[in-house]
């Protein structure tokens, strides 16, 4: 899993204790996915049980320091050379919500789409503001800044893709409405009231 592999990869650069690992993880990912120290230690315990890390004594302040084992190094190498599985897409709440919105009667799908588009757009504006505030990507030499700016780009691209998909949904929906045989003007109020009665 991600946290396990990320911690192993960090330990490959040198022995560290739990809090250091957390700081390094967040430095490189911009605290986009905050880790709590408890989670770091639980993961370290599991990694130790599996023989991927080992305790490496304590530093002067008494922090227990961990180092990666040979098996741990192999694990990191395998992680970097294996693509992240995309065959089983994670559950996407928005896609599920829209799938239900277009099939459950009485949902104003247009407004579901617009509300989401505004929310996603607002997030995209925030990401862009962070990008603008950050160092110029063209002149960035610091690997940590580059790492964080790439994470930010990934959020930007994902939000952009979501807005495009919502635009697409709206267009498809409008087309479907146009192609649907429209009830005659005289008949439609009656149909409406009939449905209300039911």
């Amino acid at each position, binding site marked *: 899993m991600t946290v396990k592999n990320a911690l192993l990869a960090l330990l490959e650069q040198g022995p560290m204790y739990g809090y250091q690992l957390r700081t390094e993880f*967040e430095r490189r990912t*911009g*605290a*986009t996915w*905050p880790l709590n120290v408890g989670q770091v230690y639980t993961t370290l315990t599991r990694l130790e049980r599996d023989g991927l890390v080992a305790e490496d004594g304590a530093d002067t302040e008494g922090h227990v320091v961990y180092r990666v084992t040979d098996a741990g190094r192999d694990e990191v190498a395998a992680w970097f050379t294996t693509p992240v599985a995309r065959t089983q897409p994670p559950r996407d709440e928005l896609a599920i919500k829209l799938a239900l919105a277009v099939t459950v009667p009485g949902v104003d799908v247009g407004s579901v789409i*617009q*509300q989401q*588009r*505004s*929310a*996603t*757009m*607002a*997030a*995209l*504006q*925030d*990401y*862009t*503001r*962070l990008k*603008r*505030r*950050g160092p110029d990507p063209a002149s960035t030499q610091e690997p940590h800044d580059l790492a964080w700016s790439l994470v930010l780009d990934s959020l*930007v*691209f994902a*939000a*952009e893709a979501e*807005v*495009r998909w919502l*635009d697409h949904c*709206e*267009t498809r929906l409008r087309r479907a409405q146009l192609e649907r045989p429209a009830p005659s003007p005289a008949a439609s109020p009656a149909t409406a009231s009939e449905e209300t009665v039911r």
Partner: protein
Amino acid sequence: MSGPASSPVLELRDVTRVHGEGEAAVQALRGVSFAAYAGELVAVMGPSGSGKSTLLTLAGGLDTPTSGVVSVEGVDLAGAGAVGRARMRRTSLGYVFQDFNLIPALTAAENVALPLELDGRSGREARALAREALAEVGITELADRFPDHMSGGQQQRVAIARAVVGERRLVLADEPTGALDTETGEDVLRLLRARCDAGAAGVMVTHEARHAAWADRVVFLRDGVVVDETGADHVESLADATAQR
């Protein structure tokens, strides 16, 4: 700089624009009210036919509304007459187009100086201001080059210099990044953004969410009506994370 309670640089009040007549009439805008203030960049998004280009054309005084009022710095554009609108296009507002619209027979500096010279400024003064504007967009060294000998990104920089030269406080941009690759497009957005941060009001029409995200506010148009607007700060945890860095 004016305070937050200042009046808008651009204001559309209950603006309707109908193209054609009778059965063939198309309502491009229907009762749109919209304002852009000094210091902000506003993006207008919407599918083709939503009225976003009409909005920009009206704001630029290239067209007048069927009903409602469009004013720039408090001046009603319809009331200003064709001559007055042309003058405002030379002095108060600048336009940036997708395909740059530079005059091929003029150098970069001459393109930028042209609106000032048309407005009666001396050649020397116009050229000095043009050089300042070219410096602002970072291409002083291209001043004597012709558009054909510049990349798309460089041409768009010249176009932005032309749009901001002098004392203009309103910059209107129609898909300004449309003909550029991602990186060059971002450079152009950075420049528009900088001009607005320096006190101009900017309105940019775009269909690219990633580019609209450079704006302070995003206005959504559908079928000639403003359906939504966004500008809030939602992703606070990320902002905090960056602040701590």
